[in-house]
């Protein structure tokens, strides 16, 4: 069966929700949390925005938004320019969140999040190796995955809340 993207009427609201969620997650990901003598970052958090990207036929717009958010994250996290843009785009092409057949439910979202974050960790590991020219430590990356996974239910809840605000109640469950 060919994969048809969903039709336009609920695409606009969906894109707005996806973009707002990404923006909030980017801001949260670059704030640091100092607790019990440890600095905690949630650098993988914006990937939640990718794996829960709304079903839409506005693919060109989606790619542009994701690319811009990737560059924004690169700049606000003071990392190499283009890194997160690449990671976001690769994930978008591989997991195709905009083309899922059913509306997102928590279990599916969590499963796809785990796939996305594990795949992205491998990408980030090799990109970091390429950038700093020495092998980065893998443990902090795993720590980051666990921390971001702990925040996943909150991000999912936030998405649900944004959907309630911006999308009509009859179309809400289709995004």
């Amino acid at each position, binding site marked *: 069966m*060919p*994969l*048809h*993207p969903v039709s336009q009427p609920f695409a606009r609201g969906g894109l707005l929700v996806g973009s707002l969620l990404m*923006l*909030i997650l980017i*801001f*949260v990901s*670059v*704030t*640091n*949390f*100092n*607790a*019990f*003598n*440890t*600095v905690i*970052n949630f*650098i993988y958090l914006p990937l939640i925005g990718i794996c829960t990207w709304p079903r839409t*036929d506005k*693919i*060109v717009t989606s*790619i*542009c938004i*994701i*690319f811009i958010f*990737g*560059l*924004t994250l690169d*700049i*606000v*996290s*003071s*990392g*190499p*320019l*283009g*890194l997160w*843009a*690449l990671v976001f*785009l*690769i994930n*978008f*092409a591989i997991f*195709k969140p*905009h*083309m899922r057949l059913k509306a997102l439910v928590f279990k599916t979202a969590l499963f796809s999040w785990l796939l996305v974050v594990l795949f992205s960790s491998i990408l*980030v*590991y090799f*990109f*970091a190796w*390429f*950038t*700093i*020219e020495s092998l*980065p*430590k893998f443990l*902090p*990356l795993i720590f980051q995955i666990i921390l971001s996974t702990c925040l996943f239910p909150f991000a999912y809840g936030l998405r649900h809340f944004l959907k309630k605000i911006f999308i009509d109640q009859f179309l809400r469950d289709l995004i």
Partner: protein
Amino acid sequence: MLGSNSNSTKASNLTYIFALILAGGLFLSDRGSQTIFLQTRSNIEAIASPGIKLFSIPITMLERISNAIEERTKALSENKALRSELYELRDYQQKSRMMELKLFRLEQLLNSSNEIDKNKEQTVARSYGEVNSPFVRSSLIDVGKKNNIQKGYAVSTVDGLYGHVQRVGSKSSRVLLLSDINSRISVMSLRSNSRAIMSGNNNDFPNLIFSNNYQGWLEGDTVLTSGDGGMLPPGLEVGSVIKDAKGKLVVNLNTNGKAIDWVLVTHYSSIKSPEFETDMKEKQTEGLSNISEVF
């Protein structure tokens, strides 16, 4: 690739390939140097900093709760330690006053008062966006050009040196932490006066490289900024020397494991070499003589 078989899919595929090439190109050209679009980066950071600050408010509240719990558990033992330290410090205070008086008189005799310290200006700032990723270790502070902050200024906490200003926006600045792989500062041992370069390595314990005397460094030595090169003020406490798992001497930063919220930016202009100043004067004199010849 990204949709059904239609014209819009072709457009989306083309857009995707274009975005991917652009991102890859930016990544390759910016790798390691981070020098592309410096002005744009500063502007975007300035725009994003109120947003980051807003989202850091609930996080700060959580931090305060965790700090309060931590401090409560330590309070009793710390109180005892502080009381004994207070008795010791009273003796030191008396000695210090005597030394200060002596130093003042000697400086008067030699006519060489320390003007650099007297002119030192500092700005208090809030640090709210520390990033500890495999690529970079940096932080955002909420002061910028409007507060007369300039590139290279030292940023410290009550515990010691934290980093230096890397980029300055209008209302915010990016601080390169001492542990970042691109950070290099000249340091000295308080005990032996030995000099070295402290080089960041993207973990919590920077390396000591290019020492003039490796025997002069021992485990437990207090590490201070040496002020060599004139980029940072001398005498700022950095950390202490420890041995890593391989037995190599590294620096345990004073700011390690501490909650960084308020920082102090020290205004310090790098010292210009006398040759440069002489050249400038000569050029000015030449310019003036040329003007007088014309008239």
